[in-house]
């Protein structure tokens, strides 16, 4: 029966599907694929006035330079550290908060908190950059005033190499958590209430119920969110870093994207910038293929 249906389907003409996909393909060809031709400059000593055809070919020299330049290596490491931390905390914290919110039975309170914590998600890093610079200022910044109450000396969150990365992670959490929390919370509310009832009768307390009922029920969505962000693994967040960093914290805070930007558009070294960008793409490519495989193997879930 099953087989028959599929055969029938295949006999149907699929040309409308091609037509429907075509416009998107054309736009992608123009704006995503055509510029990829520019990647050849990663293998050139590209001079804009000579163009792609006359610029000197230098093979993998830029890639050698990446591996040999202290700062370039540091930048790659920074990118990995920041993005992995973001990935981990970006999953754990919203889940935790969603679970906590689920324990709130006061509906107005619940809805207010829910509505309020998504707020930062809608603010751009341009705006948040301006606000954070102000809030985190060690001299009279609100946050330092606050921790000052507890006798803590002012901290230079955005200018200190020890503090910059935690600050980036936390501010990113602060911006994104509310949004993800709502996603997870929705998954929790979809859990069948009868399960809890049964568990309660069996004598399981609230914590046990969370552990054995709520979390397993959330697993699919956790895996989805996790695997989707795996593809972003090397995007440590250009917008955020660019609007928060300063030369003092290049050591820990400079990431591939900001480095590429500075090398290409500020220093005018287009080929080297492109080479670094290409390097990043190749690594992410392998990571996303890995993510795809893992998700399929362990969760039997196809990302696409």
């Amino acid at each position: 029966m099953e087989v028959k249906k599929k055969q029938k389907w295949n006999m149907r003409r699929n040309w409308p599907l091609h037509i429907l996909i075509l416009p998107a393909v054309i736009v992608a060809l123009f704006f995503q694929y055509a510029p990829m031709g520019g990647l050849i400059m990663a293998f050139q000593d590209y001079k804009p006035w000579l163009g792609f055809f006359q610029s000197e070919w230098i093979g993998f020299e830029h890639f050698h330079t990446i591996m040999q330049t202290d700062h370039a290596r540091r930048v790659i490491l920074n990118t990995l550290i920041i993005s992995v931390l973001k990935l981990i905390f970006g999953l754990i914290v919203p889940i935790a908060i969603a679970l906590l919110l689920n324990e709130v039975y006061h509906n107005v309170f619940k809805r207010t908190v829910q509505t309020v914590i998504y707020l930062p998600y809608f603010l751009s890093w341009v705006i948040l950059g301006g606000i954070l610079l102000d809030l985190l200022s060690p001299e009279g910044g609100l946050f330092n005033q606050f921790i000052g109450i507890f006798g803590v000396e002012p901290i230079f969150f955005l200018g200190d190499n020890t503090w910059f990365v935690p600050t980036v992670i936390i501010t990113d959490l602060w911006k994104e958590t509310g949004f993800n929390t709502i996603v997870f919370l929705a998954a929790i509310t979809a859990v069948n209430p009868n399960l809890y009832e049964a568990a309660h009768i069996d004598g399981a307390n609230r914590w046990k119920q969370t552990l054995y009922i709520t979390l397993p029920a959330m697993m699919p969505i956790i895996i989805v969110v996790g695997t989707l962000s795996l593809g972003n693994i090397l995007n440590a967040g250009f917008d955020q870093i660019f609007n928060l960093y300063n030369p003092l914290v290049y050591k820990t805070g400079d990431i591939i994207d900001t480095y590429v930007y500075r090398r290409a558009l500020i220093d005018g070294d287009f080929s080297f910038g492109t080479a670094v960008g290409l390097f990043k793409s190749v690594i992410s490519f392998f990571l996303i293929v890995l993510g795809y495989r893992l998700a399929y193997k362990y969760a039997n879930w196809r990302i696409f």
Partner: protein
Amino acid sequence: MIYKTKGYRIFTAFNYVFLAFLAFICVLPLIHILAVSLSGSAAASGNMVSLWPVDFTWDAYDKTMGNDNFIRSLLIAIQRTVLGTIISMGLLLCAAYGLSKYDEEFKGRKWYMWFFVFTMLFNGGIVPTYIIVTGLGLGDTIWSLVLPTAINAFNLILLLNFFRTSVPKSLEESAFIDGAGHFTIFLKIYLPISIPAIATVSLFTMVFHWNQWFDGLIYMTNERNYPLQTFLQSIVVKKDLSNVTDAQELKNMSQRTVESAQIFISALPMLVVYPFIQKYFVKGIVLGAEKE
């Protein structure tokens, strides 16, 4: 079900306090910005404002609303958000319908899929993209903000997953048997059922367009065509103070109250839009994540 153990009650108390604190931290920056924007400029540049305006005045808002450049960039941002969302959603929905079929049903789907996923990973970088966009004559037009970002493979994947999970296969099959074609099924069955999904991804796209600043910086040769975030980025946030050689310039650069007013106004539209989409949103995102 209410639990009455002592431990749980203590937990509940802490939980309420903690969540309230969390909520407070999330609105605090906006309150601060609002307070600064309503304060006198001397108090603000002396960093003397925390959560309540000092020397209350509407001055900064008068100035902001009287600033043609600000208003113009605001309109451009609205225009780009609306146009960008419509175009992007149109393209993505059509494509997602096709790609929501299974490999067995639709030969060539796999190729299309990798074609789009590939764009998530590789891009030509700023300069080649710039050359193409300006080469097509799109430089300095709204199209340079709308078209290059129209295809977002991430959103495409979300949409096709929504389609796969929310449209009952049986409904589609019986429509086919009744002689309906792909176009009819797409328009009459898929789209109406997927309103939550469409609302969700539209929201993503709107937020993206509203908050995007870097492309405006590059493609808009005429500063007058900057969308709002680009305007804010170049004038409010990234200031170049080391080269300033006179007082007038430095003074006009550092009007904190006006900056705050502009920041506050620019944050408003997204805050207003969300509640309207919220009810679809929660539904949409959960459905999209369910296993097939």
